[in-house]
């Protein structure tokens, strides 16, 4: 178990090295001077000269590369050209918000998607199946920011005649007038820990609409994966045996069908991390939700290269770690993994 984790973490090293090579190449391939790109519009000739010296942009490429990797290894990912904040600090400050949002989105997708996929498989080819597949497709073919805006207009701003539907906050993570206490920056958890239950509830309400919008992305994948996976398991011999033995349907469903069908679904969830983060870039900006997505959105809109570079690296690490956790979770569902 421990050896497995260590081995997987070691495997991360070549990925990170490769990624830093790519990012280094990317920074060099950007049009114009890399120092200028990193500094932004405040670049004075002296500042450019100093940065050139710091990163050695005037030295041979290989030397530059090692200087660059050295800076990264020391945790120096530079600072935003736009705000001057250090990139790593910004990422850490904003990460809890995105985790909260992604969890709500995933929770929504699982709670809706797994049963939907299950019943679609049980009635494959039927009306429910068509509905499940169709609605999960709809979530995919509407661009996520359009969906986000539509949700916001109906459930936060209010359409003429339908104002009664507008009961949710339109943006942000919490009503600023609450003056809630923040300890971990996971607002719901903070609210529970400090017993400011109204603050926790408010934070949760702020998560609903962005969670729904963002959740539409994994919802489609999870529904279809569950459907396919359940279909496969239903055709297995052991299910036929269980049925023949006259085991109760509940037992068959939970012990045999779901437990086996969930394996590929869990892998899917791990692989969805990247998409969730992409989606968060668009969703968070629509809902003015202060996570890494909205920050990335601004970094993209202003081409803040230092932030882009740092965040891409961090996101790749998060992606790898999430998939490691998913693989560990496998053990819970797959006894074969546990034996090892």
């Amino acid at each position: 178990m421990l050896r497995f984790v260590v081995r997987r973490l070691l495997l991360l090293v070549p990925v990170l090295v490769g990624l830093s090579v790519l990012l280094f190449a990317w920074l060099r391939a950007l049009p114009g001077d890399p120092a200028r790109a990193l500094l932004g519009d405040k670049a004075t000739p002296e500042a450019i000269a100093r940065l050139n010296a710091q990163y050695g942009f005037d030295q041979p490429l290989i030397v530059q590369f090692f200087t660059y990797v050295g800076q990264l290894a020391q945790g120096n990912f530079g600072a935003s050209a736009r705000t001057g904040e250090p990139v790593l600090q910004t990422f850490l400050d904003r990460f809890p918000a995105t985790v909260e949002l992604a969890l709500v989105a995933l929770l929504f997708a699982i709670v809706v998607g797994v049963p939907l996929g299950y019943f679609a498989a049980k009635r494959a080819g039927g009306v429910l199946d068509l509905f499940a597949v169709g609605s999960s497709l709809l979530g995919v073919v509407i661009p996520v920011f359009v969906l986000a805006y539509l949700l916001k207009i109906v459930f936060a701003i209010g359409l003429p005649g339908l104002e009664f539907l507008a009961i949710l906050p339109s943006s942000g993570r919490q009503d600023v007038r609450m003056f809630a206490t923040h300890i971990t920056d996971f607002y719901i958890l903070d609210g529970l820990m400090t017993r400011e239950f109204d603050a926790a509830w408010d934070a949760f309400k702020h998560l609903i609409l962005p969670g729904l919008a963002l959740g539409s992305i994994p919802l489609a994948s999870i529904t279809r994966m569950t459907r396919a996976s359940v279909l496969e398991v239903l055709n297995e011999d052991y299910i036929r045996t269980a049925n023949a033995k006259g085991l109760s349907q509940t037992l068959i469903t939970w012990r045999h069908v779901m437990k086996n069908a969930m394996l590929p679904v869990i892998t899917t969830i791990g692989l969805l991390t990247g998409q969730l983060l992409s989606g968060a870039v668009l969703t968070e900006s629509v809902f003015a939700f202060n996570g890494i997505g909205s920050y990335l959105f601004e970094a993209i809109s202003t081409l803040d290269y230092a932030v882009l570079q740092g965040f891409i690296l961090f996101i790749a690490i998060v992606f790898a770690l999430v998939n490691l956790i998913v693989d560990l979770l496998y053990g819970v569902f797959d006894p074969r993994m546990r034996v090892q």
Partner: protein
Amino acid sequence: MTQLPQDAAGVTPTERPPALAAAMAGGVETDEGGTSLWTAALKRLVRNPSAIVGAVIVAAFLIVALLAPVLAPYRPSTTEWANQVTPSRLPAFSPQHPLGLDPFGSDLLTQLIYGARQSLIIGVVSTVLGLLGGALLGILAGAFGGWVDTLVMRLVDILLSIPSLLLAVSVAAIVGRRPESLMIAIAAAQVPVFARLLRGSMLKQRGQDYVLAATSLGLRRRSVVMGHVFPNSLGPVIVQATLILATAIIEVAALSYLGMGSPDPTVAEWGRMLVKAQERLESYPHLTILPGLCIAVTALGFTLLGEALREALDPKTRK
């Protein structure tokens, strides 16, 4: 990018356990005897209602895109009627402009029709570019195996660990702001997906008996790869390409939303129109809804067709 209309994130058909792939095909079980792969596939296709719906949508889209100059009442991107538009007011619908004007003072119907053409161009070009890039890497890895394979696939893994939206944005930053930068960015984001797919597909073919047979007959490696392995790996690629066309159309909107794309703001492109319309989302919702609908319906068409193709081509659905 934002969403992949194929199945679960990057889980391409070839990576699935065979039984699973069969299950995904939806339990369509038919008995077709010894007909050829393609005829059989076609037969299954026309019997699938969602394939018909998809094909109709795609056909309609192609007709509108190709015949845009005939169908559209005006030339695209003319801001002739700009004097009728103010920041907060647009003129009402009229016989001259059945869908009214856009915020720049162009005819909305014309822009929507030419938007189909633009989507088609961006979709096809970026998919073809992505496919070529992916094919290059995939063939390299799949054909040679060994350390070449390892190296290429590590690179692909790294690229896949970057969310595709960020990958596209990074590429767009290098390309700069040009009319063609969207296509290049979207294509770049598809390269690792195609590479992974092609390589997996080819590895599977390499293990097949007919390859063994060809090799033992003394055929040269190159001719085995080009003559047998590559053509037989093509099925999933075609499916993927259809699905990626749908993704590309949606991705354009996302990239436009992030401020990439053509330097001409009046360009007839759905994603661009959608983004511009956000400013007037409440006062003039039709500006958002119409291009949004165009994107959704077109993407739906390609997705349905692609899914149906996948089912039809999957050997596991044949008994």
